[in-house]
């Protein structure tokens, strides 16, 4: 005989036993993994069904941004005196790789709030594991990142003639994923506040271009103080620089701090998941969509 499941809803804090809560979150999402794949493919199918350029939109913005900077550099509109002269080929690789990685990071941190806003109505009507929409959003960001890699990696191999390939190149997907997850973690931590106050979304839109300028994407990684603070005080920099170094076969300049960030990322991500879970009933009640 199948045992009867029992559910109790009460005001008591689910955080009294955080380990049990985490286990429950993992179990529920694992049991409903089929839903994750259903929603993922639904979103992928519908995302490009009403577009003319289709999947090109995954890498077109990054390529156009990169082309602008390459154009400016080739006509010496921008010059980097600190790092000396950079060959045009090296600059193309530097900017294009940086732009592709940055675009995935931005998608990562904007995905959780966007996923919550898109699915708020459904969450207010049907009870299903709430983390599922975040999981689906992560899968979409990873899917887009993989598509970008399919363009980027052959291009890099073509321009470098495969000279930069080493054992450390194999670490590129790991660090690239860590870069995306650091973005997702920031986004997930912002969901409770972002769902209540629309200011959060507006601030994110406002700071994204500034954040990009503060990350060594279009210019070489600064090494001297105080410019190198852009690396240490910028969540995106260490992982982005290291991922790029691994892919281009350059000596990783900030490998240590990158792996420290990756290690810290795991507990921070779990904390973000728990915060998200306990906030959801409050957000559904307060943010106007019941």
């Amino acid at each position, binding site marked *: *005989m199948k*045992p*009867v*499941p*029992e*559910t*109790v*809803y*009460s*005001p*008591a*804090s*689910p*955080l*009294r*036993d955080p380990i*049990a809560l985490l286990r*429950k979150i993992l179990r*529920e999402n694992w*049991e*409903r993994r*089929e*839903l994750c794949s*259903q*929603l993922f493919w*639904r979103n992928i*199918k*519908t995302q490009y*069904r*009403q577009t003319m350029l289709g999947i090109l939109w995954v890498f077109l913005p990054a390529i156009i941004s990169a082309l602008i900077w390459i154009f400016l550099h080739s006509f010496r509109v921008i010059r980097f005196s600190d790092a000396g002269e950079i060959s045009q080929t090296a600059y193309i690789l530097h900017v294009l790789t940086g732009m592709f990685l940055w675009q995935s990071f931005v998608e990562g941190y904007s995905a959780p709030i966007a996923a919550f806003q898109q699915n708020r*109505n*459904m*969450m*207010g*009507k*049907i*009870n*299903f*594991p709430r983390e599922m929409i975040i999981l689906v959003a992560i899968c979409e960001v990873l899917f887009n990142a993989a598509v970008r890699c399919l363009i980027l990696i052959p291009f890099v191999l073509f321009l470098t003639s495969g000279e930069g390939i080493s054992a450390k190149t194999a670490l590129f997907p790991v660090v690239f994923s860590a870069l995306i997850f650091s973005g997702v973690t920031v986004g997930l931590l912002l969901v*409770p*506040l972002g769902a*209540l*106050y629309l200011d959060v979304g507006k601030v994110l839109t406002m700071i994204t271009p500034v954040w990009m300028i503060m990350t060594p994407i279009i210019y070489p990684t600064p090494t001297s103080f105080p410019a190198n603070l852009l690396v240490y005080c910028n969540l995106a920099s260490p992982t982005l620089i290291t991922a790029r170094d691994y892919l281009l076969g350059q000596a990783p300049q900030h490998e240590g701090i990158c792996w420290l960030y990756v290690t810290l990322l795991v507990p921070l991500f779990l904390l973000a998941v728990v*915060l998200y879970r*306990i*906030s959801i*009933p*409050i*957000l*559904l*009640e*307060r*943010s*106007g969509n*019941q």
Partner: protein
Amino acid sequence: MSHPHSTDEKKNGASAPVESVQPNECEAETDDFKVVEVEGVSKTYCRNLRRSLWYGVQDIFRELTFQGSYSGSLRKEEFEAVQEVSFDMKRGECVALLGPNGAGKSSMLKMMNGILRPNQGSIRIRGRVSALIELGTGFNPVLSGRENVFINSSILGFSREETEEKFDEILEFSEIGEFIDSPVQSYSSGMKVRLGFAVASHLAPDLLLVDEVLAVGDLAFRLKCYDHLQKRVESGMSVIVVSHIVAMMPRFCTRAIVFDKGRVTFDGDIMEGIAEYQKILGIEKAKLKRINEDDFSNPDPLSSPETTGVEEPEIQPEVQVDHAKTLDQNGVESDTFSTGDPITLEIAIRSQRDLEQCKMVISLDSASFGIVSTMVSARKEFLFPLGSVSRKGLNVFRLHLKKVPLVDGGYSFNISIYGDGKLSLLEQRHALGAFKILNTNDRRKALKGILTINHSWENCNDREES
């Protein structure tokens, strides 16, 4: 009141959170097995959006500091939408949650579905829960009906295999036919609703929560939905239905829980519950009418005393109904009668001056069916004088209704008073003297409809033979 159990916990469930109580397999097989136990549940909301958002930030902080949901006294601009509600439900029971808008029914349903958390009390659910709250939630307009069926059922907790197994049944029930492979954006709203209901209703939960979804689609499809729901109840599923269409409720509900202003005012037999609900509805209607009249009487808000600061004397209409009440055959005030009982309506009128040749028009109103009958005093050549309140006090009249043939339900009276002249309306009031008809002792009288018509039967074949 904080419940000792941890919140939103569940075991062996497919979709929602659970608790550490071990399931009792033997108990589950008994008739007394309780599927739902609601104990002292309250839910508060805030009227002011900005304040509500700030309370939201505070509540998240409380959760992070292990304090759980806020359950203290009401904060500024908060009100209790659900107040200390308690009830339980046995396996196979079908319960109607009735009440006027804003009574707390949907909030209760959302707490039972785990969407919202109670501020006080606890809700214990044994078994898998599904909710029919908004049909077609999660439908994507650019995907085909077929694709949406699989996605929608997955959101509701079906596996792909289960959906494939039920797909033909769902398709047949929805009557979508060949359009199943067309994008949902090309469907009419009725088609979307039919497909949504077909998917959701083919789930097999232990407890099904239905919120107002039976009011959609055309009549034929609605009847089909009712039939389907009735079959599910007969198969042993427990169902909670929230709907304002009470006429169909007795078909599959045996019990009603009536909500008014967040509290349970009645819990019992469905017919009695409907009567109680209609009585509340009549009172609400009267209040609404009064508010509208007040608004209309002062159309310019800028000239109101609140805005001008000038205190104006209260203008009293010349004639006012002071009160109206129903009396039984012994002249004793009562608001509950049986079919066929005589009912007397007593009306007390306050007049500011002496008037002659007044008339009264009284309509008997059913909250769910509308006007049942209208009685005009002039047609009975009953013209009456009204004495001023300073001279005579209240003017009291009685309207005697003989053998009232109404069936179970809630009713009230609309009263209009006219002076000497066709267009001289002096006073008009709605939903006064609310009463209910209940045939608790003779269930045969509790028929569908609104009236029992005095009738007889005759076998014409017998007459021809003789």
